[in-house]
Every structure is written in C-alpha cells, then in structure tokens.
C-alpha cells in the first residue's frame, strides 16, 4: 500500500495493456512536451483531464489514485517552493497570478506523474524489455534490465531473511546513536553483497550452459507488432501536439484569474 504501487505493473487485460510500449512512451513524451510549453493553468488542467479516460479504459484506477496520493507530498513541496521563488525573485504581478503560476507548476509535475503512472501500470517489464530490444538497444542491456526486475522480489526476500538471521543473533538495528546505527547495517549488507556475487556466478554458468553468445543475431519468441490501436494512439498524440503548438504560437491563453473575473 505505498506510492510505488502506483507504478508497478498491474496484470489485467485492457486495450491500453495491449498497446506497443514504444507508442505509449511516445505518448508520455508528447505529454511532457506539451506540459512544458504552457505556464497557464487552463491548458494544464485540460491535459490532466483528458488522460483520465485513459486510466479508466486501462482499468487501473485504484493504483493510479495511489500514485496521485503518493505524489501529493512532493507536489505540495513544489507548490511552496515556486510560490516563494516567484515572490522573492520577481515576476510577481499579483496574488492571483502568484497562486496560479505556482499551481500550474505543481500541475505540470502531477500531469507527468499521471502519464508515467499509466505507462508503468499498463506495461509489463517483459514488454518493456522487448520494446528496448526492438528499439535497437544492445541485447546485453535489455537482458540486464529484465533480469534485474526478475530478481527484485528474490533480493527483497533475501534481505529480509538476512535481517532476521542477524536479529536472531542479538543484532538490534534501532539501538545506539547515528554512527552505531549505520555500523549495524554492515552485518546486513555484507551477506547481501556476497550473495549477489555468488548469484551472478551461478547465473553466468546457467547462461553459458544455454548457449549464450552462440550467434550475434538473436531471435525472439515474442515480437512487438504495431496494430490499429497503436497507429490510432500515435495519430491522436501527434494531433494533440500539433494543436498544442498551434495554440501556443497563435492563441493567447488566458489566465484563470482573468477568466474567472469576467
């Protein structure tokens, strides 16, 4: 039940899950680009809202809300720092301007979290690794990436076991002053590192035994193929980007304050 759950892949089936990760990443980049273009609250609000249907279609509402909740703390921090920096370093026109600008910066951050969250919630690490491979990244890196993810739960469990084993020998992690507390972690770190080294050796043996490095042109059981849905998303994303650029260039976007006092 933590903020990280908002970014962990959720295995459901939905149209968004089926989309090519490369296309989804393009969408995230475009959202980022648009978010950076505007300083006004209105377009950022729009950007935030148009992504919500995405979340619903992807059936990851619960987890997405968690990522929003998790980012609340950092968002508040951004709001406050922006407020203070505009106040002290100028650009300060009026109270409502200050409020809106700070809120807009905060919303920019939230919009980014929103799209990244959608990306990671709907893309399995498998697919991600595959996307990296098909994007031309050398196989060694893709392999290191997916293998690392594969071992995350194993390492987490091992760390817990090591802590338990040392606690069972009287190690008290909470005791003592700051320096002592750091020293207390040595009996945890060393077994963890030694185990990781041993594990890599065993993995290397197993890789060799399965003909690792036999030929440079590896084949793959899976292949990512672009489908109708992917082209659709690409077109929408580009259309929105084009529209946003047009607006940014030619249409003066009003501040909320002006809109509301009308």
């Amino acid at each position, binding site marked *: 039940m933590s903020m990280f759950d908002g970014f962990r892949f959720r295995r459901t089936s939905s149209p968004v899950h089926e989309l090519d990760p490369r296309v989804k990443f393009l969408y995230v980049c475009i959202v980022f680009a648009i978010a950076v273009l505007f300083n006004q609250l209105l377009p950022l609000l729009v950007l935030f809202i148009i992504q919500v249907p995405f979340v619903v279609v992807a059936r990851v509402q619960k987890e997405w809300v968690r990522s929003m909740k998790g980012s609340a703390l950092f968002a508040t921090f951004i709001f406050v720092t922006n407020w203070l920096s505009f106040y002290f370093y100028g650009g300060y026109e009026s109270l409502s301007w200050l409020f809106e600008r700070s809120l807009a910066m905060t919303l920019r951050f939230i919009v980014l979290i929103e799209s990244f969250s959608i990306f990671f919630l709907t893309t*399995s*690490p*498998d697919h991600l*690794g595959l996307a990296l491979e098909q994007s031309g990244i050398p196989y060694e890196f893709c*392999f290191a990436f*997916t*293998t690392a*993810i*594969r071992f995350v*739960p*194993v390492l987490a469990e091992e760390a817990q076991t090591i802590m338990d084993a040392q606690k069972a020998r009287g190690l008290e992690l909470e005791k003592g002053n700051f320096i002592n507390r750091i020293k207390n972690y040595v009996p945890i770190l060393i077994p963890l590192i030694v185990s990781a080294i041993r*594990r890599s050796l*065993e*993995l*290397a*043996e*197993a*890789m*060799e*035994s*399965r*003909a*690792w*490095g*036999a*030929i440079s*042109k*590896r*084949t*793959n*059981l*899976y*292949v990512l193929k672009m489908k109708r849905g992917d082209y659709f998303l690409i077109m929408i994303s580009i259309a929105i980007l084009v529209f946003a650029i047009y607006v940014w260039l030619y249409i003066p976007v009003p501040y909320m304050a002006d809109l509301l006092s009308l």
Partner: protein
Amino acid sequence: MATEKLAIIKAKSLTYTYPIGAKPAFEDVTLEIKEGEFVILTGPSGCGKTTLCRCFNGLIPHFYGGRLDGEIEVAGMRVVEHQIHELAQHVGLVFQNPENQLFALSVEKDVAFGLENLGIPREEIRKRVDWALQMADILDLRERAPYELSGGQQQRVAIASVLAMHPEVIVLDEPTSFIDPLGAQKIFEVINELNEKLGITIILVEHRLDLASRYADRIIIMSKGRIVLDGEPRKVFDSEEARLVGVGIPKATRLFQILREHRFNISEVPVTVEEASIVIKEALKRDRS
C-alpha cells in the same frame, strides 16, 4: 538396456585442478557413458562429482580455467576444442539452485532462452517451447513468473529450458537439494520419462539414492577425486566399498544386508521398496506353508 549403443561421453585419465586449487578436484577419471543410459553419479561432499559434471558441457575448462589433463569427448567432440555454446547444444546442464538458473519474467520466455541464443526461427521456437513444457508437465505454468513457482516447479522449468535445445545428454547436478520429497519425486519421474520415451542420456548427481536409484541403469560412486565404484545398482549398493565410502545406500538394500548377517538367504539384494516387498512376501509365504 544399452546393447550396441555408441559412447556419447568418453573420458580417459581425466584430471582437473581449479585455478586456485592446491590439489586436483578429481584425478584419473576414465569412463564411458553410452547413449540412452541413466547414470547416477554420487559420493560424499568434495569427491569431485560436481566438478566432473561441469566438464561434460565445457564449463570446465572454458568458463573456469584451471588445468585439465587427459581426454574428454562429448557427442564426438573434444571438449577442449569446442566452445561452450556448441557443446551446450548436445549436453544440457541443470543446476542445484532452481532460482539462479531462471532469468526471464515468464516461464515460456525462459524455456525459449536457449533457442533464442541459437538464433532459431520464431515458429520453431514456439513449437519446441510448447513441446518442452508438455514433456516437463508444466504447460499450465507457461505464463507464470518464476518467483511465483515452488522449487520443484522451477526445476522443471529449468529442465524444460534445457530440453528445448534437443540435447542428447542432460546432466543434473543435485537438482533436488532444495526441493521437498514430493517435488523431488515428480522431478525424477519427468527425468525418467525423458530417458525412456526420448532416449536422452541422463547423468544425475544425487544424494537421495532412496528416491532416485529405481530409475538408474548404472551407479558411479566417487570418493576423494576418484571413481571407486561403477556398475549395476544392485552390485554397487551391496558392496562393502559403498558402505565404507559413506553414501546413502537405499534402506531396502540395507535392511537385507542386516537380514543376511543373521543368515537370512537371498539370491539378489533388493534395491527398491517393491523388490524388498516381493522378497519378504515370498519368505513369509514359505513360512506359512
């Protein structure tokens, strides 16, 4: 069962010393393993059996370095002259720790790993993966992540991954060390199927002789780096040397050794529970009549 079968593994006066080793891990090993045999390789810890296994697919000498003297030939290839990835297509190796030989995030991707490395076309990979999953009885696990599986299931995935490469020989190094008895039994049943149905040569390094020896054609016992016994299970288990070396002789055999000491006559010492039952039943029936 091996009539005029060819030798798939030939070792002559093989001696190996690890790079940082003071003395050889094993020495003067001479043996021939014929195609289709089911061999159990056993012996006390440190006897060299694990090291010997790694010579069969080239991990020794290519991965470990060190000094390898003598001759070893596998599937007609001299091990010192061929890369591991060539030898791996003929001799598959399944390791002791199930967790550290699975890399992928799903079972079927793991089974495909070796085939992908070999550049085999996708349709062929798909066929072989399905076949291997079937043979290892893990078809229903194909989409699962390795972390979710039990140790026994993980080992069967490892076996399937090796099997998919169509090797002539599969070597298993203490595959059931971390597995519970039922899981271990399942693994032995799968290995036996591979041997009986597909004719794959099996070399199984094991301590659990009570569960595994019923499947073996041949037992090889090593001690302190040398082969001390090599033959039919019955003869090997009943020998004095086996007791002195200190391997886990099946209880069925041990029981009859004790009975024999008390002048109970038997022609052949049983190796399995079933054989023991038959012998005792006969004796009890004679007793009745």
